[in-house]
């Protein structure tokens, strides 16, 4: 349990998100290599935090070679961080939100005072619906090539059967998300799109995220270092991630036990949040997450537009943490939840609780 009035787990260092930058996400970026896409984003985040390239105490990134089909592509991306002479560096083959988790733990240990976290994905190089089948159980599931829309549609139908939503309610989530993105210059879809035809029934094109390329970067800093680098640091009050059993048929697809558990352990239920950035790529998944996170009606859900407005795979979860932190930086939020997911039907879930300085305990 977190102690009220003080960021982080009991007795731990205070750690905050002090900078966030992202690309203007697009359907395709054939004129740029991944390092070329990353470079301006990293520079923008470092500039915000007042760090020179290579100066961060720790660097951690998230990406997947399967997206662009280029083995060890993350080593190429290291060209952009000032990695020579060598820096302390790590990589996760996951969404960048999990890279942020690793960096947070690194700072908690006291081995570093600042960290650069980044993520990128070039989904346009391949067929994303085929590529993502390769993350599934290789014995009983992957040989059937079930794509992420198909699996999300099974979850959506389960929710409809349970009376928890219907197609009209899902369409309203899609419209609300993309209308919110009108004020987000980085979003790929910046206004409502037609509900469209069924991709896999009951999900229509409007219920699915846009496929696109993008990158994001975040800077973490500890204690007074964070206060120097940012007027309103977004303090990480707690963060946890949990996974569901891997077999889809074992799970109750209408619920997200792992999200609820991660939220509990992150302290999400200790006080109400005013904002939630949810990594729900499909409209139906927002229904599941609202329930698991017990979000009240007044909470601003995905004011950025969320992944229905821009979903650069491997970066979209990190962007949720960044967008929630940016709301705090701008004084638009005092306490925000950020959620990231990985795998089919909300397989694995990360929840972070961020707070602005007005909730800090002052000595």
């Amino acid at each position, binding site marked *: 349990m977190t102690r009220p009035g003080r960021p982080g787990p009991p007795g731990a260092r205070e750690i905050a998100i002090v900078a966030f930058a992202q690309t203007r996400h697009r359907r395709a970026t054939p004129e*740029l290599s991944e*390092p070329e896409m990353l470079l301006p984003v990293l520079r923008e985040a470092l500039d915000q935090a007042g760090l020179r390239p290579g100066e961060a105490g720790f660097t951690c990134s998230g990406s997947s070679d399967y997206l662009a089909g280029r083995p060890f592509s993350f080593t190429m991306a290291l060209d952009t961080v000032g990695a020579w002479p060598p820096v302390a560096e790590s990589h996760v083959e996951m969404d960048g939100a999990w890279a942020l988790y690793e960096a947070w733990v690194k700072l908690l240990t006291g081995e570093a005072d600042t960290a650069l976290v980044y993520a990128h994905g070039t989904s346009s190089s391949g067929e994303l619906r085929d590529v993502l089948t390769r993350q599934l159980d290789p014995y*009983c599931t992957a040989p*059937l*090539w079930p794509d992420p829309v198909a*699996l999300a549609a099974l979850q959506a139908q389960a929710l409809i059967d349970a009376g928890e939503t219907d197609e009209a309610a899902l369409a309203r989530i899609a419209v609300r998300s993309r209308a919110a993105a009108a004020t987000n210059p980085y979003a790929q879809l910046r206004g409502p799109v037609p509900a469209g035809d069924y991709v*896999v029934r009951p999900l229509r094109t409007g219920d699915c995220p846009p496929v696109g390329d993008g990158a994001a970067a975040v800077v973490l800093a500890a204690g007074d270092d964070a206060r120097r680098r940012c007027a309103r640091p977004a303090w990480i009050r707690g963060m946890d991630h949990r996974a569901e059993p891997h077999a889809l*048929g*074992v799970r109750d697809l209408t619920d997200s036990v792992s999200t609820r558990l991660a939220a509990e352990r992150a302290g999400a239920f200790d006080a109400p949040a005013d904002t939630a950035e949810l990594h729900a790529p499909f409209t139906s998944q927002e229904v599941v997450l609202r329930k698991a996170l017990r979000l009240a009606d007044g909470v601003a859900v995905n004011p950025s537009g969320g992944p229905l407005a821009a979903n650069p795979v491997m970066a979209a979860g990190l962007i949720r943490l960044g967008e929630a932190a940016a709301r705090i930086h701008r004084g638009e939020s005092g306490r925000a939840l950020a959620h990231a997911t990985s795998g089919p039907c909300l397989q694995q879930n990360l929840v972070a609780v961020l707070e602005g300085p007005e909730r800090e305990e002052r000595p």
Partner: protein
Amino acid sequence: MPDVLTAPLVVEFPFTRSLGPVLSAFLTGLRERVVLGIRTRDGRVLVPPAEYDPVTGEDLHALVRTAATGTVTTWAWNPAPRRGQPLATPFAWVLVRLDGADTALLHALDAPGPEAVRTGLRVRVRWAARRTGAITDIACFEPCPPGTDAPAGPAVPHDGVFPDPVTILTTPARLDYTYTPGRALGRHLAALADRRITGERCPSCHKVYVPPRGACPTCAVATGEQVEVGPRGTVTTFCVVNIKARNLTIDVPYVYAHIALDGAGLALHGRIAGIPCDQVRMGLRVEPVWTGDARHPDHYRPTGEPDAAYDTYKELL
């Protein structure tokens, strides 16, 4: 901006996986038209069988046989099947709880249209004609004909023993990509088409990267100024290749070398020919040999100049 270069890139290889006792029994069972599940300590039957209880983590051994009939627990109509999926015509993805099981199996349901599918529908396995010990031995599910849809009884214990069990699963995987080189490498490749080798200079430390990747890894800034290098260069180090690579027509032995082109801040690699292998040496001066309409030099050959002094290339080793 010049036209963006693109190239098809196919990543294709078979994954070979050992199965272990539980999945071996399950997949061998499918080959024999038998569906096996596994019973947890609290009595639940999992199909497909898990090696460990997803709730408690206990290892599981109690195999049971379930029926090949079951009930749809959720479904999704797929109007446009994709490569590799169980059916080539529109079908429903389904989770099916087989009679005798407590969990559901993912597969396809062959049905005339979405109006013929609902949660609660009674279905049965349609076996593949040719079965090898794989989840695709179930070709798909199909609706139970009227009058044959009474649920079967509970699962019964099974020893999981079959003749000639399947122990290895080989699954092919193919993914198709379009490769694009990006700004810096794209310009480099465009120059190569004119038989010019170009790098890019770091605006901060002035090092010239060949081939350029768009950023200086020391300074973390974009490289921009295009610099023509070579065509002559110096062998900084080399090796003699004695093993013939598949799909290569080059005879062994041959020399593969790092070559610092004049003006370049790092060495690139290439083959050395036109000189016996045992006479190639560090400091040897070489130049590219272009053949046909290939975009890269076929190889490098000696120029006949005196060898470069060690001090001129020691930083590029």
